[in-house]
């Protein structure tokens, strides 16, 4: 019991001693990702047959992905590794070049899909592969939920 209090006290000190974290940028990258989620969710409904195919919605989602892919690489400064309930893993900063390359590929795949998708059939063929970019990055760089 006493020992755990000491440990807790030591932890509290070390947290306080850590560099102040940039909570705004954490908030911003989470919001950017939330927008990706909303955009992906809208198209998933069409894939499942819970909503009718709508080209305008699909294009809007793809444009959301493209702008997120451009914005995201700048949202992981060194002072944003902890705090603000971030689920970004330390691996992001250990291999930032790979993370950036993944965002670039994600943006490129969305751009290609935007050009390729004209109707429901091309939507069903060209959209789902993008989800591999999402899952592949979350697999390596994002912690599971608490």
């Amino acid at each position, binding site marked *: 019991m006493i020992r755990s209090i000491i440990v807790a006290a030591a932890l509290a000190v070390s947290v306080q001693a850590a560099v102040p974290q940039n909570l705004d940028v954490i908030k911003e990258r989470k919001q950017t990702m939330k927008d990706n989620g909303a955009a992906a969710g809208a198209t998933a409904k069409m894939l499942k047959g819970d909503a009718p195919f709508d080209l305008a919605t699909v294009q809007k989602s793809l444009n959301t992905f493209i702008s997120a892919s451009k914005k995201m690489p700048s949202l992981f400064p060194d002072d944003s590794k902890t705090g603000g309930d971030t689920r970004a893993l330390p691996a992001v900063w250990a291999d930032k070049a790979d993370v950036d390359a993944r965002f670039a590929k994600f943006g490129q795949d969305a751009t290609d899909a935007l050009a390729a998708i004209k109707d429901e059939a091309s939507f069903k063929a060209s959209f789902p592969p993008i989800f591999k970019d999402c899952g592949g990055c*979350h697999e390596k760089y994002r912690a599971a939920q608490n």
Partner: protein
Amino acid sequence: MPVRSTLLVLAALAAVAACALWQLTEPRAAFSRDQWQSYEQGGDAARGRIVFEAGGCASCHATPGQPDRLKLGGGLQLKSPFGSFTVPNISPHPDDGIGAWKVVDLANAMLTGVSPSRTHYYPAFPYTSFQRVKIEDVRDLMTFLRTLAPVSGKAGDHDLSFPFNIRRGLGLWKLLFLDGKPLKADPAKTLQWNRGRYLVEGLGHCAECHSPRNILGAVVADRRFAGGPNLEGKGRVPNITPDASGLGPWSQKDIAELLTSGLTPDGDSVGGAMAEVIRNTAELPPSDREAIAEYLKSLPPRQTSPPEKKGSGG
């Protein structure tokens, strides 16, 4: 002299107990090698591929750090509280893989956790779930595995602490946690539900990650599928029972979509160990993903397992 005879009796008792223990922990294989030939006939590689994907063999056995999921050279390290396991080579290489194995050998490994040289496997190889797999599926799987490229080089040894490095001890563990019962079809339920149960409880070994474990590393029965700690890193593995705190709000279509694209109903894309599971389930026929969804929605609803208290009492 009374003391001496007591000691003798005690020694004799200890010897009997040790013998009993030795017999109890003896690795018992379900299939004898004498009958091996009858199991070699009629395997189908295309069906075996589905067994392979449903069983997620590539997730553990594919050589890490290269993109080919069918290169089964092993080498992946699995961390556990007992030490680190190194996944073996199961490519059809005659010396370094399982090229010399018969269907019965694979059946004994998957269904009873016993090797061809009659030693116990560790349950890091999820035979606690694979024990439910049908022998015909093992035969098809073996037929498929034999079509793959042999990979040379043995994977390394496990790095386990005492007493976990003694394989014989696993015999006791198996007595406690392995019942060896196949799943009996439930005629009151749909064919799809029965298929789903087989995929979830047997091949898919979903409970191995989605449940908390006791100190012996076995799944806690009344918390099965209710979520648990993430052994591989931060965060927790979610509850997949149809409770409000789990998949309650999800439709069967939502679950089938997750198993196809990794997308949750709110548009999030699952990561962590589940991303790899989805690489397998995405290769299944759509009817199998629907079967998994139907079965999950029929599980007894359980509230999400509370996080374990750590190091209290100091």
